[in-house]
Structures are given as C-alpha cells and as structure tokens.
C-alpha cells in the first residue's frame, strides 16, 4: 500500500514524464502529430490488403446488420494490440532510458513505465476516437462503446504488469528483452487480430482451442470488437475472467517489480 501511496505523491512526475515524452516525440518533424495517426493507418492498410484481400479473411456482419468490413473489424483488434505492445515494450525502454536520472535523483522507478503507459493510452484513445467516428459514419452505433474506457484501463493494467516485470528483469539480463520481442511476435499471431476466431475454432481440436482461448488478449480483442463492431455486451463470465486476469497480472507484476527494483538502480 505504501508503494501505491508513493506513486500517488509522484503523480505530477508521471504527468510530466508523459508530457515530456509527448512533447519531444514529434519535435523537428513537419507532420508532427499526424505521424501518430499515419503509423497505425499504414499498418491497417497493409494488413487489410494482405489478410483481407490476398488471404481473403472475412469479417462477420457488424452489429447494425448491414456493414461488413474486414478493415474495421481488424482495426478494433489493432487498437487493443497497439496499446498492449506499446505498454510492454515501452516499459522496458522507459526504465532503461531513465537509468541515468534514477542514479541522480530519487523517484519511484516504476514512474517512467507508468508514464509510458499513459502516453500509449492516449494514442489508443485517439485511435478509438477515430474508430468511433468511422462507425458513426457507417451507422454502426451502440451503447457498447462505453465498454471501451473500461477496456483501456484493464489492458493498461495487464500490459503494465507484464511490462514492469519484463523491464526490471531486462536490466539484469538483456536476454529478457529479446525473449519478450519473440514472445510479442508470437502473441500477435496467437491472438485473433488479423483473422476471426471462428477460423481457429474450425481448424483446431477442441482441447487445443481451449488453450488458445486462455490467451487473455483474445478476450481483450473480443471486447473491442463487441464494443465497436458487433455492438454486443460480453458475457458475465468474460467480465469476470478479464477483470480478474488483468488485476492479478498487474498485482503480481507490481510485486515482482517492487521486490526486484530495490537494487535495480545500481545495475542501470
């Protein structure tokens, strides 16, 4: 609890670190903030062409009963994925780059990672906003949009839990960073982002599909699609699982971080 209280007293630092990151990110570029939209847009276009057109992946019917767009279906999943991977990867980079500073001034070593999470969350919010705008245009509107803020908080906690652990172990053992890189790559394809879950369900034996379903990101992506595309509410079981998993991951990650971070500054 004292750790939580300490983070709270340093909330202004987290705010400032996030602000520093955002302000300095697009200095000296002409397009500036437009890059934060151009990047995901390019990914979306590439994936839509590769998986939607070339591989012929199909999206289910949207919640309004008329729209059927693989690109939009894909976008829902990408918003979640970008947020998650940005949080995990950014946590490691944030702790590394704060090393010199942590050696000169005391502040909780989790602050840079938390600040990073918020900058990525802002990005996710913008992407979500764009998604909402498009959905409004195509007339796919629902109260399920309200699920999105909760989803962001849960994905943020989940990603931070993993990111904190990865970041602190990466300081002691650089291999962790590389392993995480491979792991993230595998996880991306193990999550139904560029394809619908139905395809996996059809091709895997029942037991393998059970394991596949254990991937928490599958649930997160499903929520995003429920919220923006299918316009349905997740089941009570899904709520229970997602909230439990997110909080547990965050709690365990934070505890491991606090234990390991005690002497991490000497190693930075």
């Amino acid at each position, binding site marked *: 609890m004292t750790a939580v209280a300490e983070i709270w007293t*340093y909330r202004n630092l987290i705010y400032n670190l996030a602000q520093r990151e955002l*302000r300095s990110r697009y200095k000296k570029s002409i397009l500036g903030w437009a890059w934060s939209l151009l990047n995901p847009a390019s990914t979306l276009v590439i994936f839509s062409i590769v998986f939607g057109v070339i591989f012929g992946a199909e999206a289910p019917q949207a919640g309004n009963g008329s729209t059927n767009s693989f690109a939009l279906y894909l976008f829902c999943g990408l918003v979640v994925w970008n947020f998650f991977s940005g949080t995990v990867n950014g946590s490691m980079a944030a702790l590394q780059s704060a090393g010199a500073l*942590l050696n000169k*001034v005391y502040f909780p070593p989790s602050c840079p990672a938390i600040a990073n999470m918020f900058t990525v969350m802002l990005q996710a919010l913008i992407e979500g906003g764009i998604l909402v705008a498009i959905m409004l245009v195509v007339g796919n509107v629902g109260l399920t949009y309200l699920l999105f803020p909760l989803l962001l908080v849960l994905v943020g906690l989940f990603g931070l839990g993993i990111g904190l652990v990865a970041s602190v172990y990466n300081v002691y053992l*650089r291999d962790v960073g590389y392993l995480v890189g491979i792991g993230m790559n595998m996880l991306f394809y193990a999550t139904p982002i560029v394809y619908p879950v139905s395809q996996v369900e059809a091709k895997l034996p029942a037991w393998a599909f059970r394991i596949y379903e254990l991937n928490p990101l599958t649930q997160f992506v499903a929520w995003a699609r429920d919220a923006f595309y299918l316009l349905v509410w997740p089941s009570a079981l899904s709520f229970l699982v997602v909230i439990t998993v997110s909080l547990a991951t965050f709690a365990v990650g934070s505890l491991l971080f606090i234990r390991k971070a005690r002497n991490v500054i000497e190693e930075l």
Partner: protein
Amino acid sequence: MGDTPAIAVHDVAKHFRLYKERAGSVKELFTKRRGKRYEEFWALKGVSLEVPHGSVYGLVGHNGSGKSTLLKMMAGILKPTRGEIHTDGRISALLELGAGFHPELSGRENIYLNAAILGLSRHEVDDIFDDIVEFSGLDGFVDSPVKHYSSGMFVRLGFSVAVHVNPRILIIDEVIAVGDEEFQRRCFEHLYKLRRQGVTIVMVTHSLDLVRTLCDRAAWLDHGNILAEGKAVDVVHEYLAKVNAAEGLRLEEEERLRSEFEASQTEAARPVGAPEARNIRLGEIEALDADLRSTRLFRSRHPMTVRMHYECRAPVESPRFSFTLESQAGVLVAHPFQFPDFERGSIPVGRGYVDYTIRSLALGPGEYTITAAVHDAQGTMVVDKKERVITFRIEADEPLLGLVDLGGEWGGLQSGPGGDVDR
C-alpha cells in the same frame, strides 16, 4: 519533529558487485555457474550517524571512501544492504545539476519537469516558478530549448530548481564547484540563507575550508568506515593530521626520487668554482618543527627551522649560505641570505650545520620548495647548490588566503571625518 534527527543512519552497510564483464546472458547462467562473474565490494561497512534538524553536515574523505554512496542512500537512490536510514522531511538532492533536463524542451518545461522529479505538485511549481527563473538569471531564455543553453546557464537553472523546491533536507555532492565565480557566490549566499531558514544540509566536499566555515558537524569516512564524527572543526583537524602524515610521506618519497635522479646526473652539471672554494659541500637539508624534529608539515604562525648540513674538506674563508623558498606556482617567496659582514671567519675541516630559525611562519597554506646553496665570501659564485631539495606543506589552523600572513591587526571602528566616499 521533536528529537528525531533529520537523517538517522543506523549501522548501514552497502555491498556492490563489480562485474568482470558487463554482459549478462542466459548462457552464463549455465556455463559460468561455478566461476564468479563479479567481485564483492563493500562500499560502506556499518556506518552510524545522525544529522540533527537544521544543521549543516559535512562528509569528508578521500575518493572511494564511500561518501557519495552514503549520500545516495540518504537521498533514497540506493538502498542499504544492511542497516537502516530514516529521514524526516522532503529531501532534495543535488547530485548532478540539471539531471533530468530534456534538451529538446524549453527551460520552462524543464523547470516543471525537474521540479516534478523532485516531488513537487504543479501548483507548488507555479508558486516558485518566478523565483527559480530570477535566481537562475535566464529571464530571456526561459522559452528556448535547453540544448541551446551554455553549460553555465544549464547548471544555473539546475541549481536554481533544486534549491527552490523548498526542501527540509538538501543533499549536495560537490556540485557547487561549478559555474563562474559570480554564480558560486550566489550559491553560497543561498546556502547560508537556507541554513538560516533551518534547512538541514548534508554535503560532500573536498574543500575543508567549506566544511570548517559552513558545517556544524562532520564525519570523516575512510574505506567505508567512520574514522571521526563530531564538530566540523574537530573532524577537519583530525582529518588533516592524517592526510598530512600521508602527504609528508609522499613529499619525502618525491624528494628521494629527485635526489636519486640528480645524483645520477654528471658532476659537470654541478656548479664549478675555484678549487679551494669547492672544498665545501652541502649535505642534508632539513626542515624542523618547533621541537627540532624533521617533518614536511608545518603550520602557519608556528616555528620552523631550516638546517643546512655541510662538509668541509679544507678550511674555507667565510662561506655564505642561502636558500630560496618557492611556492607551488614557482613564485619566489623568500630568499634568506647570509650577509658578508658576518664575522664567521673560516670554517674548520669537518662536518657541521647552520640553522635558519623562523619564530612564526608567516606563510599561507600550500606547498613550498626549498633550494639550498652555499656561496663564496663575496657572494658572487655558487660553490654548491641543491635544487628543490625539500618540499613541505603548510596548513593553516584558521582559514587563511594568500601566500603571506601579514600579521597585522584590525583596529576598532572609529567615527569622525574621513575621506570622501564615491557615490
């Protein structure tokens, strides 16, 4: 607050691992399990001290004594391996000025960022923002990126932020030794001001004068142990005594090397005089303290004797001894010379010595070197000379600047008509 000290350090030890190779990898976990990848190193070995509220505390010791490690633990940056540190009040640490400045951001943005790193809320920064800018003297540059700042401006802004965050405890690591004189002066003024306001200050410094004048208490650390702790003046005194002893050995060693080197030079390099005059040669040159013990360490306003030994092979008529005293910078400070009208007559064959006694050494602290010489009766010819034969060190008990102690006295203030005062 009550009786709790601002900082209580209780039996603190700190252990470091010095890695032989920096790279850590999974492979090593399996292959190098048996061979140790690192060496154990105790930077601090059980240190206890208390820094009272509102006091200025100095940490002295040579490099690697653990001062900075202790400071970092007080600031909370490092955690003790053993023991406990309790602090009471907000700490602002100046381990590096401008740490955390982002080069692309403006001075204004960096002030907010840096103050946040030191734990301030946005409103608190709003309140002190103008003071920070004014103290740093960066008025016109606050909105340009700090990467365009000169190093002086950078440091000024860093110091300004650190001292304005209104800390209860300020931790300073040798950082004031930066910036121009004008800025240093302002830094010290500000430190004195903070001290008056009751801010607890802990500082690491190599400037013993600073410890003596600014600090109330001090601790002397050596290889991770406290050798002395107490009133700053006493600690500095003890520290100096030890340092001086070591320094004396060093100076003697240097002299030995130099004399060996000079002995290896050919005789031709030595001064040549008339054959009869060459009959006197200088022997050992000694620097003696009040008790006529040979030493390399002297104190201002204390006695000193320079003893010049000689050897005479045949009677020499009225030789004249002299020596020069040079400061470290090579300034000729003094050149005592025997006058020709001394009725010394001729010196008999054999060995002997001549003393030059100084009752009160009127020199400021520093290193000085003696070159001894003996001349013929007319003083025109150098018969023998020993270049830079002794180097000794002078310490002052009280702060004393400059080479010379003029030994004057200040009178009381007198009222009455005086000269015009320029307006």
